């Protein structure tokens, strides 16, 4: 297969992967599915198999390579220094050139619903969306699955097919379950997988020690968190919602600024309806700053504990 030449150059690099699995705990895709094949290591093994002839190119394999939130944590954690994202990029190009029509976690538009407002095209920080032949199309090599385009769509026509726990409906299911199963449940912390994710992994050791009052949910980029999810969290019974995002200068998707602007608008709305705006807070936590993440969460919990439950009957 001549098109494989693009990947041949990575053969030696793929041999460098010592299968240590350090990439596992940094990958939201793997942490959501818990399948080896969804981990960066699993995907590298698939590519190795492709080059050795043991794995046939298929829609299944192609789709795996397009399922990635481009956070680059795997590459930073790799003990062998494999440039995983560069390998993926060439693999994706190979699959598209070979005619595999897969979308993975790239954002796609439902053309029947789309109003052609073009807001998603203007919003995309990676110039991955454009208007071609009357339709919004996504450049699957440029799209970084950050989800900036999701909440901007007034028709809810933009979606990421498999969210691996980060899509609005998946978040809402987790939130509902948390408040149904925990009588002490008080708050949801939405965390950006770029900055806060590695931090909170080390902040909470295992599920047994998990705080019964707060649930931390990964949203990929904080800019992807939609306002409706936040309001519905309050409607589920949360005393408050904390959003931890990257410092604005660190966010490659402009998501931190957008999250702040959206939550600022929601805080004003809360104030208008007589609810204390401190129930929604946004805090910047730089990547790997476990201590700041814990402190920020504790400070937030102290504040909303003072405010009390958002109960029926007029009390804020």
């Amino acid at each position, binding site marked *: 297969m001549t098109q494989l030449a693009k990947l041949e150059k990575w053969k030696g690099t793929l041999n460098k992967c010592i299968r240590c699995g350090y990439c596992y705990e940094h990958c939201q895709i793997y942490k959501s599915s818990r399948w080896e094949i969804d981990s960066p290591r699993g995907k590298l093994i698939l590519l190795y198999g492709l080059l050795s002839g043991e794995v046939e190119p298929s829609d299944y394999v192609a789709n795996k390579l397009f399922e990635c939130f481009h956070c680059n944590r795997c590459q930073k954690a790799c003990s062998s220094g494999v440039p995983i994202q560069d390998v993926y990029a060439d693999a994706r190009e190979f699959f598209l050139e070979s005619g595999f029509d897969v979308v993975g976690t790239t954002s796609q538009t439902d053309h029947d619903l789309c109003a*052609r407002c073009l807001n998603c095209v*203007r919003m995309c920080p990676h110039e991955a969306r454009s208007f071609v032949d009357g339709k919004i199309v996504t450049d699957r090599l440029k799209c970084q699955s950050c989800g900036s385009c999701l909440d901007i769509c*007034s028709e*809810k026509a933009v979606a990421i097919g498999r969210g691996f726990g980060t899509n609005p409906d998946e978040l809402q299911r987790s939130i509902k379950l948390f408040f149904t199963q925990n009588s002490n449940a008080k708050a949801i912390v939405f965390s950006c997988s770029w900055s806060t994710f590695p931090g909170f992994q080390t902040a909470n050791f295992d599920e047994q020690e998990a705080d019964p009052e707060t649930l931390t949910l990964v949203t990929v980029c904080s800019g992807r968190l939609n306002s*409706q999810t936040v309001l*519905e969290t309050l*409607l589920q019974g949360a005393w408050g919602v904390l959003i931890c995002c990257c410092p604005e200068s660190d966010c490659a998707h402009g998501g931190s600024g957008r999250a702040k602007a959206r939550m600022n608008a929601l805080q004003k709305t809360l104030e*208008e*309806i007589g609810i204390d705006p401190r129930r929604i807070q946004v805090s910047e936590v730089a990547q790997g700053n476990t201590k700041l993440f814990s402190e920020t969460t504790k400070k937030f919990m102290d504040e909303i504990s003072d405010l009390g439950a958002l109960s029926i009957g*007029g009390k804020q």
Partner: protein
Amino acid sequence: MILAERKPIADILSHLGDARRVLLVGCHGCVTVCSAGGQKEVDLLVDVLQLARKAQGQAIEIGKMTLERQCDVEFLSEMLEQAKQFDVILSLACGAGVQLVAERAGSLRVLPALNTTAIGVSEQKGQWGERCQACGDCKLPLTGGICPVTRCSKSLLNGPCGGSSKGLCEIGNGTPCGWQLIIDRLEVTGCLDQYETILEPADWSSARDGGPRKLVREDLK
């Protein structure tokens, strides 16, 4: 497109009063394109109203739907049937849509959730600007494609006035001087000689001053 923005929630709540069953109706037309009254905005307003009533300790039953357009009666019928189960219709359409719904809603109250602000364009992400005041007598052929009625704060037909400075209008907020825009555009298109033509006082009877306007096309009847 017609531009609109959501009314302050406090106003919406005050207009709703103690209505217990509210039907929220969005519009897939202009207000979707300017992110004010589409499906997403309907869903968001549902949550806001539920939270508001929760905080007040009052119950509310909310229905929702988004219509193709609220300015065409054919798209209203199914919604109006469902609306019989509600106390009030809260429309997220422009002022035209809200009024057509009100005309057809019989004894049911119809309230606007939006303020209709202008006829305009998308200037950049998250920003829209006014371009037309629907005066009914388009001056654009004489003014380089830039409307003096809309873009000049005083709607001067022969400008600029003394309030124009360095290309900006004296009203501030970085508003460009409409007549500076016109002159620049006439120059770029090689039509600066048109600037010498004095525009006669306009007949504003084709605009709002002549009362509510009606458009009749016999060929389409």
